[in-house]
């Protein structure tokens, strides 16, 4: 298991540039699969594939900037059981206060893949039973006054993605994001004529946004590549947005490897100690052999 901790406290004078890449692809401990199949006969052809991977890892980053000048920040966390985030923030001359907290924990319990081909090699069936408990929490606060800021964020949990985009001279934003993926049971049946896929999983996403911008504000929530919410505000607007999505479905073989560390320290412990308003706790339904994340929004901050 890898543990990475990062704390940055910086006073800005003229120009500050921060780039942070965190991807399981370049770590030594990538665990997962990338499978694909093509089933064809003389008249038709079907394709199906799925990828999933993670790295056993604990990552912590706590960043604070405060000062005057030009800044640029690029952040990319990708490849942890389909959970990640991406940030691009640029500011022209102005006054900036920036706070960013990232907690990431991922582990792998097991992946079982059963494949069969029958019916004269025209019927393919794949069943994937995976347990990749992964948790990502991000808390991002920006306060800016100056010649201009451009801030773009993307948060995603497998097929669910949240986007924010801002241009502003007078800008403040507070974002809290929590994404978790525990386990999944994926079944696919492929014939030359059709593909049937069923995904049962235990995962959850919670997103709380509070922002104020005097020029451009954009927000989108996309699921399975289908836009669910798209909002664009031109002018001076305050936005308060709460999004939660939860899946309960796949039964897990063994629940003993769950992420006690993150829920006790990262959310309930760490944030409540900071007198924050965002809390989460885990509830185990022993009778259904399920393990789910329940997020509570107790008091959103208005901009």
């Amino acid at each position, binding site marked *: 298991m890898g543990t990475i901790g990062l704390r940055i406290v910086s006073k800005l004078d003229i120009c500050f540039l921060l780039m942070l890449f965190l991807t399981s692809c370049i770590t030594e*401990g990538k665990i997962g699969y990338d*499978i694909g199949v*093509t089933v064809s006969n003389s008249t038709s052809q079907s394709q199906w594939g799925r990828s999933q991977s993670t790295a056993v890892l604990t990552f912590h980053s706590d960043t604070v900037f405060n000062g005057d000048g030009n800044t640029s920040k690029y952040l990319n966390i990708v490849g942890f059981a389909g959970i990640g985030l991406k940030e691009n923030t640029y500011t022209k001359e102005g006054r900036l206060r920036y706070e960013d907290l990232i907690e990431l924990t991922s582990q792998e319990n097991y992946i*079982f893949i059963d494949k069969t*081909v029958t019916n004269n*090699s025209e019927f393919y069936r794949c069943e994937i039973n995976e347990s990749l408990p992964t948790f990502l929490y991000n808390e991002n606060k920006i306060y800016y006054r100056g010649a201009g800021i451009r801030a773009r964020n993307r948060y995603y949990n497998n097929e669910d993605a949240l986007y924010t985009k801002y241009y502003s001279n007078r800008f403040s934003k507070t974002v809290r994001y929590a994404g978790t993926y525990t386990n999944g049971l994926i079944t696919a049946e492929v014939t030359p004529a059709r593909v049937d896929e069923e995904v049962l999983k235990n995962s959850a996403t919670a997103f709380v946004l509070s922002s104020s911008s005097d020029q451009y504000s954009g927000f989108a929530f996309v699921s399975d590549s289908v836009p669910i919410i798209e909002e664009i505000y031109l002018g001076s607007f305050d936005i308060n947005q709460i999004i939660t999505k939860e899946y309960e479905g796949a039964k897990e073989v063994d629940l003993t490897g769950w992420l006690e560390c993150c829920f006790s320290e990262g959310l309930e412990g760490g944030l409540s100690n900071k007198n924050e308003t965002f809390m989460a706790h885990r509830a185990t339904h022993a009778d259904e052999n399920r393990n789910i994340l329940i997020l509570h929004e107790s008091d959103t901050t208005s901009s």
Partner: protein
Amino acid sequence: MRMKISNLCIIIILVLISEATTITADVHMSDVYYTSGNAVSDSMTLHNVDYKSGVMIFPTVLVDNSKAGPVDGSEDCWLEDSTGNDAGSCLKIEADKFEYNKISFADGLSNAVINNYKLESGLAQAKYFNGITSIREIVSSKDNEYQSCFVASRQGLYSSSFGWPTRGKYSGFYHEISMTHAGKSCKIESELSCSDEVSGEIPVQYSWDALTGSDDVYAMARIGISASDGDRDVDFCIDGESSYLTDKHSGPEHIDAVESMDKRVSKDVYMMYEIIR
């Protein structure tokens, strides 16, 4: 030379089969599995073949166990399987009756793959390799009970195979081993054929075996044939060539068919190459 011509014909047939099977493939799987940063790729194409695979991936190790066989009563059955990373194997079987089993495993540092197969009549092309050694085998079998096992790992390669005729049928085989080890290469070609004409009731007996092995320093390849007289004429031979020795020849040997026998006559030939790094 007769054997050279037959080799050319076999290669042409294999190329034609390869082209044809690419067009008519029914199921093609292309998978990669990761554990502890190590990756094992697995590519398989099936035609009129049933297949079953179970993969287990844990944080420090992965295991892939798969088996395949032709659909009952089907003709034109074949599979192609390619597995590995630093060490790996490729196998193509085209036969109406065969059994195939593969076990592949890997940890964070290395991987290994074990292939087993049996076939009666058909073609099998196998290649197994690691960073130092590469071995290729081509087997064309006609009415034999042939089985082979080959193993590829970073530490070395190993294979063992043998065959004998299916009772009461006209039979023969061609078996070729090409090996490259530390820049040196060798090739062994063996062939046996029985005549169509039957004279007598005591069937011809023969068997052949092939063996390869390698480690960091040493590699070897061997083919042996043993045949006894019976109801058909038998012709067999083994030829060898290498990049560091003069060509070798064992045979050709001929055993006449006999109506009856008081004492069975047997002939054995074998050829072996060794390469030291």
